[in-house]
């Protein structure tokens, strides 16, 4: 029994294996009764050390490695990397290849958003909707498999272009699937804005104001649902997006419902772009030659992944392997906003708010160095850091 007047706090550990999400992450949620008072996340269960591994692989091998950072948005990772390397090498990619890249990126956005929509409906306990969306998602998977041969990790990109062409039969299949999905998306938009049961789980839950969203550094649909003008496809068009302009979708409510509406409305933009690309697909080559050794230098490549801004820093020292590649993925930017938003909500809302940012932990688990509680900045030279790494693992193996 606690003292009278003094509230006792209880901490609930969730994960890394938990029924809500399919990926391993550990959350410590402090509750007072049913109300969340504090939330802490422990990342890194899926940290594999990809950024280090690519330093010992060639530019081409790294492409396939980086594609496997994430199994949902694999194309966009490869695309960001290719755009960066091509920029470093000073190679101009044929317009047809760029258009196909954008086409696949939009197909991937559709499959990713539908996937997320199903999973978050499942979090809300609305399993029927989950099953329906995943049934519809198979249409996109069929298309992706149709021209690449694999459902996930389709390896459409190569350095200097794309591997697969879109022929007439595939264009017809894509048009058919898009018109089917467009009709379904209207229905889903209806569900998330009109279904009373669903609205009780989303309306007014997890509200993030515009200033909060800016301070917490959110990206992608999470930010756009709070009326933050942040969309790389609009602000800094890459690949073929300058020819196929995107309309930014914003919502000023900032709650879970807004995040559903923004993502589903974005799907209509994707459908429009796909149809437009099929109409005006430029003729020409699919690839261009790219040297085996990339000129020394460094570059930054930014693309809009389904979850938000994906950022690549690529540094070359003139050899056939990258010197340093750094990927900053959207989930790591959005993750901290969840920890803030959870406070003050019911424990039952935790999975929904977490799903609301469309978390992808395999993207998320990059190395982040935090110097908590120390105001002194610490600078390590590359040699010292390398030696530290060697010593650290020597100590561990002893």
């Amino acid at each position, binding site marked *: 029994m606690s003292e009278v007047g003094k509230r006792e706090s209880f901490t609930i550990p969730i994960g890394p294996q938990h029924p809500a999400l399919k990926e391993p992450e550990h959350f410590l949620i402090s509750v007072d009764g049913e109300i969340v008072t504090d939330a802490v996340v422990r990342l890194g269960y*899926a940290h594999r050390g990809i950024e280090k591994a690519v330093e010992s692989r060639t530019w081409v091998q790294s492409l396939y490695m980086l594609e496997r950072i994430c199994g949902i948005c694999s194309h966009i990772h490869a695309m960001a990397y290719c755009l960066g390397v091509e920029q470093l090498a000073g190679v101009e990619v044929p317009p047809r290849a760029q258009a196909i890249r954008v086409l696949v990126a939009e197909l991937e956005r559709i499959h990713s958003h539908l996937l997320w929509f199903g999973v978050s409906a499942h979090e809300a306990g609305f399993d029927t909707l989950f099953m329906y969306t*995943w049934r519809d998602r198979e249409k996109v998977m069929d298309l992706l498999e149709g021209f690449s041969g*694999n459902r996930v990790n389709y390896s459409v990109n190569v350095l200097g272009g794309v591997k697969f062409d879109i022929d007439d039969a595939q264009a017809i299949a894509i048009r058919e699937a898009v018109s089917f999905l467009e009709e379904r998306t209207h229905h889903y938009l209806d569900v998330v804005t009109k279904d009373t049961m669903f609205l009780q789980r989303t309306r007014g839950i997890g509200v993030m104001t515009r200033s909060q969203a800016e301070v917490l550094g959110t990206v992608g649909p999470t930010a756009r649902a709070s009326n933050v003008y942040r969309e790389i496809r609009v602000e800094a068009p890459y690949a073929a997006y300058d020819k196929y302009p995107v309309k930014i979708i914003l919502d000023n409510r900032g709650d879970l419902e807004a995040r559903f509406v923004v993502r589903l409305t974005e799907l209509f933009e994707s459908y429009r772009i796909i149809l437009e690309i099929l109409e005006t697909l430029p003729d020409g080559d699919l690839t261009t030659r790219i040297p085996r050794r990339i000129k020394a230098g460094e570059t930054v490549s930014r693309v809009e992944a389904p979850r938000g801004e994906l950022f690549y820093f690529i540094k070359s020292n003139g050899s056939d392997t990258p010197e340093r590649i750094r990927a900053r993925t959207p989930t790591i930017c959005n993750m901290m906003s969840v920890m803030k938003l959870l406070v003050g909500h019911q424990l039952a809302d935790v999975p929904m708010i977490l799903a609301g940012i469309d978390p992808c932990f395999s993207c998320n688990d990059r190395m982040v160095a935090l110097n908590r509680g120390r105001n002194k900045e610490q600078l390590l030279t590359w040699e010292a850091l390398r030696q530290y790494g060697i010593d650290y693992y020597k100590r561990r193996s002893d």
Partner: protein
Amino acid sequence: MHQRDNYFQNLLSRMKTWSRINSPWILHFNSGSCNGCDIEILATLTPRYDLERFGVKLQGSPRHADVLLCTGGVTRQARDRLLRIYSQMHEPKFVVAIGACALTGGVFRDCYNILGGIEEVIPVDAYIPGCPPRPEAIIDGVVKLLSSLQAPAVGESGQVSIDEIGTEVK
């Protein structure tokens, strides 16, 4: 009397095997995968492929599960959790490694944080290769595992207790 006991024991074990084959409950753990295999497992459970028609049900708790579906190479941080989940499952338990990474570490083999495939940590009963395996391949793997249960030897032997695996950090 002795013969009658044997008869009932035999009947009981046959009933247990029958129910296990007809309704295996599965648990899914991602020990460092890229998410591709996890999504394919989920896709296998959804209407197009519908693994649930074999009585398979996705479970949240290791204590309710018969089959552990593992994806991804084992990262240093996830290793202890994988061992813990495996030890929390009831006997007889079965492990299915799904995807190239779960088999050998895949593309992530030799990454500093990857110990290797699932079999480096816990014993595996079925391997489903692919990057990621198609839902049909996952169904095929699960059905093969279930049909192998009909031979009684597999269910009872081939299980290693958690103490035998050892807990030394590689």
